[in-house]
């Protein structure tokens, strides 16, 4: 579903990604772990077609980036630590707007369905700026699944959420993954990643330094695996 070969990204003289290889198959939930500045967000932004690779090949669902970016975007749902929602619009209006941008059919019923799914139907007519951070993040997930994407990218989705909101977000993330979507999630939170993902990749200084599947490692050993991967980098 996602194939990345020898990906390089430079910002001026600074090289952030240094010939990175990555692959995720359909239905896989990959947690991308790494310290600050390792290149996680840059990598996700390239997958999301928000940033152009300097060199290397990126292929998502059979389409190449950046040449076939529009076809890739149609198959992508992105959730970042920012909600990408308009504070002066209601939840319903935000979803309706994004639905129009994606050309979603039966928009009215789909919006109602998604609001129900993320548990925001009672607050659908409230302005998003009056929402708590957790509610905004739930609506952000609703926005991202509105067009039924094949691939979902989550960039630190738990940032700024309290325990309850994080737990609720985890439930939604599990449901999203359980429906056969390919999920790539960056995270600092190893415990949370261990709970959700089916594979753990460690990224350091712009390359994947280690990768392990969930059934190959005990959740308790993930921290040791992560530390060792960083030391060997």
């Amino acid at each position, binding site marked *: 579903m996602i194939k990345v070969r020898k990906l390089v990204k430079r910002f001026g003289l600074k090289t952030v990604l240094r010939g990175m290889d990555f692959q995720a198959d359909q239905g896989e939930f990959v947690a991308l772990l790494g310290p600050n500045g390792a290149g996680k967000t840059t990598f996700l932004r390239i997958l999301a077609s*928000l940033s152009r690779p300097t060199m290397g090949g990126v292929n998502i669902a059979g389409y190449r980036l950046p040449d076939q970016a529009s076809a890739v975007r149609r198959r992508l749902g*992105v959730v970042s630590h920012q909600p*990408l929602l308009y*504070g*002066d619009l209601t939840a319903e209006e935000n979803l309706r707007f*994004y639905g129009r*941008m994606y050309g979603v059919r039966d928009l009215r019923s789909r919006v109602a369905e998604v609001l129900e799914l993320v548990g925001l139907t009672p607050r659908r007519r409230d302005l998003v700026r009056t929402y708590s951070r957790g509610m905004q993040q739930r609506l952000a997930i609703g926005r991202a699944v509105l067009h*039924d994407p094949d691939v979902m990218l989550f960039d630190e989705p738990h940032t700024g959420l309290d325990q309850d909101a994080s737990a609720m977000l985890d439930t939604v993330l599990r449901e999203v993954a359980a429906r056969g979507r390919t999920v790539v999630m960056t995270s600092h939170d190893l415990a949370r990643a261990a709970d959700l993902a089916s594979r753990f990749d460690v990224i350091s200084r712009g390359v994947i330094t280690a990768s392990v599947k969930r059934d190959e490692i005990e959740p308790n050993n993930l921290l040791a695996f992560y530390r060792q991967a960083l030391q060997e980098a």
Partner: protein
Amino acid sequence: MTIERESSYLPEKQGIPADSKAVGFLRAMGAVVWKDLSAEIRSRELLSAMLIFALLVILIFNFALDLDPATRREPTITAGVLWVIFVFAGTLGLNRSMAIEKDRGCLDGLLLAPVDRSAIYFGKALGNLVFMLMVEFIVLPIYSLLYNVNLFNPGLLLVILLGSIGYVAVGTLLAAMAVQARTRDILLPILLFPVVLPVILAAVKASTGFLDGSEMEVIRPWINLLIAYDIIFSAVAFMVFDYVVEE
């Protein structure tokens, strides 16, 4: 809580032909305009700031110039003051309009949509034009009252429309560029004013011409310049917007 996935909501995936490129373009453009107008109707942030600023500039010029009644009605003064008001109030609106997109990462949300990115540009530009025309529509009668000048001349209104289109065409593109920078508030006027100078010059000259009742032969070259500028910069923005907003 279940995220259902039995059916697809994108026409292409269902085997239904996706909308034609033109329909998709217009739909996305309309969605951006609708979104900007809906948000503004609710918050009134942008319009009220532009309007208050415009009214303050009228008052400041009224006192600062301290002209005798005859000079105040001079077409050159009227055209100059009017366009200074429109340009400064417009800059305020352009800055705010793009800052809203940066807030909560909404610009990324727009760029993630599978649409031609120039549809986003034209949607934003159309929204900005509506706001600018609304401010101008309110400023004109107030200016007429305070300065005792009749500004409801069809020719002048056409110049205001053409000048505003050119100003917004360039301004929206440069605001999208400036919004990526930390110093966006000061960067936009620095980038915008030199590029938009031909529009302001042509608009002031054409406005003066209509106000002092000049022959069409005198005014026409300035009108032509405005039309050419509007077309050229709309085309340039159509071609480069994708690169401007990408990292």
